[in-house]
């Protein structure tokens, strides 16, 4: 999807952006929507938090967290892609929104459709976390669980999109949906004062976010909106070992993405064995000089706790994958102490508490007496 970059380069975009509130629509000129959004007017504008305590533990002096665990209304970066794609769908005359989802997209589509009184049908793998199912059904969406992997769900949706006149945000509206991801990275550049970091680490499921981080920053460079860098920002991709088709290709230096038949990971939001944008994500990583890491379930849980304990940010398992991958990349020397690093935290920990329940101690129970308190503190 292209824009009239010549015309945009002549406009004083930074000044225009600065006049608008900090949310995803601040960058309207770089989004494929004419007019006002139908839904999600306040989506985005999430904090870019300096993370010195996490940085000290990672061994990197300058670390920031782009925190979409607090993106409203459904606490993940999927609110961005959904606000854009539903707004486009309404413009096309659709009254029924649908998607294939590993959870966060389901929540966002269900809420977005409800806010406009539209029908919603959401397809999920049957193994999805309970919290993500509840946080979809509560909006009145029809949820259909498929006995299979996400890739089976996705395939059914590709075929169903042929048959039903529904707006599948990540199938027949996917080009619009994907452009919404750009706003996450545009905000990072904006919040850093129109500079880019040396490194960014992002989680990969279908690979779209990594591809769009690259695209959005390339657009900013093309439009002269960011300071030129001596060396491009290195984009690093993070996946769990139980489902790492893109990371494996990057690490092996292969162009071919070999799909994973049965993903096995606690990071269910990243359990996409046949990533549609894997090729584009791997290419963006390679061209940036970045790399990838695949991390274990134990590393994911430890990293979720590390982020929460050092910075007060509770992220879902996918965020644990990002932080754990950053640890790995620092250990490997791909990220150096004196370089700057942005970590992409894209979802909320309250949606994926199961892996932590097994790890955290049960709180001690005492009577309401000082003597009992004194005995344990």
């Amino acid at each position: 999807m292209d824009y009239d970059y010549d015309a945009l380069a002549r406009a004083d975009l930074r000044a225009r952006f600065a006049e608008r509130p900090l949310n995803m629509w601040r960058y309207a000129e770089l989004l494929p929507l004419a007019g006002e959004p139908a839904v999600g007017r306040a989506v985005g504008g999430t904090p870019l938090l300096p993370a010195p305590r996490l940085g000290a533990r990672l061994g990197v002096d300058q670390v920031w967290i782009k925190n979409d665990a607090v993106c409203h209304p459904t606490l993940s970066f999927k609110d961005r892609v959904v606000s854009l794609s539903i707004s486009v769908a309404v413009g096309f005359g659709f009254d029924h929104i649908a998607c294939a989802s590993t959870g966060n997209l389901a929540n966002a589509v269900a809420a977005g459709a409800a806010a406009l009184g539209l029908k919603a049908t959401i397809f999920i793998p049957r193994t999805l976390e309970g919290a993500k199912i509840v946080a979809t059904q509560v909006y009145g969406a029809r949820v259909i669980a498929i006995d299979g992997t996400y890739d089976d769900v996705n395939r059914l949706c590709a075929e169903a999109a042929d048959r039903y006149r529904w707006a599948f945000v990540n199938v027949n509206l996917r080009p619009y949906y994907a452009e919404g991801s750009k706003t996450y990275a545009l905000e990072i550049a904006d919040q850093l004062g129109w500079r880019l970091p040396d490194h960014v680490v992002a989680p990969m499921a279908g690979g779209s976010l990594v591809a769009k981080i690259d695209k959005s920053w390339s657009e900013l460079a093309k439009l002269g909106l960011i300071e030129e860098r001596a060396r491009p920002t290195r984009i690093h991709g993070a996946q769990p070992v139980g489902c790492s088709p893109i990371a494996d290709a990057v690490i092996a230096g292969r162009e071919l993405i070999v799909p994973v038949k049965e993903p096995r990971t606690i990071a269910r939001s990243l359990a996409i064995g046949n990533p549609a944008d894997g090729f584009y994500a791997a290419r963006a990583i390679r061209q940036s000089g970045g790399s990838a890491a695949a991390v274990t379930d134990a590393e994911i849980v430890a990293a979720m706790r590390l982020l929460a304990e050092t910075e007060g940010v509770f992220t879902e398992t996918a965020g644990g994958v990002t932080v754990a991958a950053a640890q790995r990349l620092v250990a490997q020397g791909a990220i150096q102490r004196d370089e700057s690093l942005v970590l992409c935290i894209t979802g909320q920990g309250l949606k994926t508490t199961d892996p932590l329940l097994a790890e955290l101690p049960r709180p001690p129970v005492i009577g309401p007496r000082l003597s009992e308190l004194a005995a344990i503190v």
Partner: protein
Amino acid sequence: MATIRIPTPLRKLTEGREEVAAAGATVGEVIANLEAAYPGIKARICDDSGAVRKFVNIFANDEDIRFLKNLDTPLKESDEVSIVPAIAGGE
């Protein structure tokens, strides 16, 4: 003959048909026979080297042929083959 499910973007090559039948003992043979009946369709499914294109998924009875024997995956008369484009975000 196996039944082949055709996705919307390719139906202009199959006279609008959603399903067609084609003979062949393997997925590759079925595609070759499809090409004979509907010229131009193979180039949409396979690249110049004859391999299945990066953004096309082919399923033999619900199984991705990349987990079977790719184009050499054997087929029986009653089998169903689905051609499903991978929907990527694009450039």
